[in-house]
């Protein structure tokens, strides 16, 4: 008697060489990313061409003579058809040339490289807070569905989705810095500590640890704790809500009953069986929440005078430094796309059904 021990899918999968399959999948993914990036550049290009500011005047100044204007016009390639301009633009971006900032007179990319680690530091710390506090909170809320633990979480989430982050940042500064003096004020460090520690990663917390300068380390902590906590609160609200949702879904599944039938304690059922299944979609959520923090950091950085990418873009905006604004926007868009890609990859890695 023949026994069908292997499902047709498994058999087919084993037939095609895994290498070929992987290349095929990679190709599809690559194409879709490139298409998105292309569109991204297209949008920023359009924005740049739509603006009412004359790019030539921005470079040569208002009092330039006609000849100089014409020369600059040709040099900027503005006499060529739009399509050609677009390809020049794409090429520039690929080679990392985002133009010069009219504010700092330095290449935009260089400026961005300087400010990016500050945002990175903030977003990373906020995500850590969100994950470490959010996942257990979500689990507890799901396990106690409907009871007070769940209601508290619901309110945390509700407040998180309703409060303007820049307002809560101001109030936080008012209370914890102004009235209580528990944390440092705006900026990453007290004035007299700036630029003492050599910048290796650009993240002061790490750099000061490398040289074991504890004074600067704790000073940096006192400055980052408030903005990171506020951003972390938003991250926590989101992650905990999603954790709760996923956990509730899993707790209704049959395999949970099986685990209980086997005689497992409820703790093991939740943390060993259910959580393993929850982590799969949750990893995507965590990566995406990291991406959302890039957005939240824009306003937070303004409030806390945090010299990161968000602050950079905002200042550039207010000074009509279009190259910087667009450069920053492209970088943010790239990071977003990159993070989305990362979350897809991680998902396939973690879910045995998707391999």
């Amino acid at each position, binding site marked *: 008697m023949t026994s069908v021990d292997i499902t047709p899918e498994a058999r087919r999968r084993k037939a095609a060489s895994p290498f070929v399959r992987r290349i095929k999948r990679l190709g599809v993914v690559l194409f879709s990313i490139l298409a998105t990036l292309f569109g991204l550049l297209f949008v920023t290009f359009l924005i740049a061409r739509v603006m009412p500011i004359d790019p030539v005047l921005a470079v040569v100044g208002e009092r330039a003579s006609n000849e100089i204007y014409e020369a600059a016009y040709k040099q900027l390639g503005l006499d060529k058809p739009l399509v050609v301009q677009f390809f020049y633009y794409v090429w520039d971006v690929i080679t990392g040339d985002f133009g010069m900032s009219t504010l700092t007179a330095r290449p935009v990319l260089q400026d961005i490289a300087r400010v990016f680690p500050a945002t990175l530091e903030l977003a990373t710390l906020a995500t850590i807070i969100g994950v470490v506090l959010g996942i257990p909170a979500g689990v507890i809320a799901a396990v106690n569905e409907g009871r007070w633990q769940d209601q508290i979480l619901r309110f945390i989430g509700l407040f998180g989705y*309703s409060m*303007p982050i820049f307002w809560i940042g*101001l109030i936080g500064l008012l209370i914890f810095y102004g009235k209580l003096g528990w944390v440092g004020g705006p900026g990453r460090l007290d004035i007299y500590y700036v630029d003492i520690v050599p910048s290796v990663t650009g993240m002061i917390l790490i750099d000061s640890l490398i040289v074991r300068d504890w004074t600067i380390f704790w000073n940096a902590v006192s400055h980052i704790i408030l903005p990171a906590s506020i951003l972390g609160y938003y991250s926590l609200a989101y992650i905990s809500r999603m954790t709760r949702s996923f956990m509730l879904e899993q707790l209704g599944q049959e395999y949970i009953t099986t685990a209980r039938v086997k005689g497992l304690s409820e703790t093991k059922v939740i943390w060993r069986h259910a959580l393993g299944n929850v982590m799969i979609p949750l990893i995507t959520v965590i990566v995406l929440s990291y991406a959302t923090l890039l957005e939240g950091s824009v306003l937070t950085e303004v409030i806390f005078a945090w010299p990161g990418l968000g602050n950079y873009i905002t200042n550039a905006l207010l000074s009509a430094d*279009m190259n910087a604004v667009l450069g920053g926007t492209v970088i943010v868009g790239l990071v977003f796309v990159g993070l989305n890609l990362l979350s897809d990859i991680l998902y396939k890695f973690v879910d045995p059904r998707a391999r």
Partner: protein
Amino acid sequence: MSEQTELSGLKAWLSTDVPASRFQAKSIQFYLGWLKLVSNPLAFLGFLILLVLVFCAMFAPFLAPVDPLTQDLAKRLSPPGVNGYLLGSDELGRDILSRIIYGSRITLFIVTLVAVTAPVFGLLVGTFAGYLGGWIDEVLMRVTDIFLAFPKLVLALAFVAALGAGIENAILAISITAWPAYARIARAETLTIRNSDFISAVRLQGAGTLHIIVRHIWPLCLSSIIVRMTLDMAGIILTAAGLGFLGLGAQPPMPEWGAMISAGRKFILDQWWVATMPGLAIFIVSLGFNLLGDGLRDILDPKKSKS
């Protein structure tokens, strides 16, 4: 079944089990939904908050104690309750309460315009993409993905930078960043519905694509879109306030709440009320939309509301 005595007029009409017309059936649905809303205290609170918002916007001239633009430099930065200013006065001596009340008009203006443009556009794109499929679907979804690839605030910033500061440009920028989410939802719903038997039945009767999409698919997408829209409104208010805070929304001396916070930022340590009060207004309105949205989700999508 029930031994109730005869219900009078309207109530009887709304409680009948056998509606006589489509209008009656729809009204009954509406009524039942309303009962559900009222029975949910938090959702009802959200509804009341929004009612207050609309009320303030409509009757601002009657509700505000003074004109929001009148300055009185002698009484600038008065604390709440002093000098007749219920919520205090700002750096130019203007009454904060009046400014907040008039600011509700701006908030409502922004919210309404975005609510009318973004979901409609998203619905159009999403349903056509989902129903027609093929390369139209691919292209439209690619475009949607591109817009979703930006964090909303940053994209709105870039747009306003290009178009110039001002309330109309801010609204346009927000709408441009908001529509993709609705396109995604509409497309997902369309894909679910498009293979249903009743769609096939209508098609067999000779219905064209446009007819199917408009008369059959749109009504079914409506509830998800409405729920999403109400919940989004909260975020849109925050984004608009953020733009205002950066000086990119309504221009001074208009009493836009975000701009008021920005103006009050300098004084936060000593005259905290200037920045705090408008922020409270933003918070309450946003909360109202969130509460109402949650409640609507329970009513319209009870299966999905279990999370």
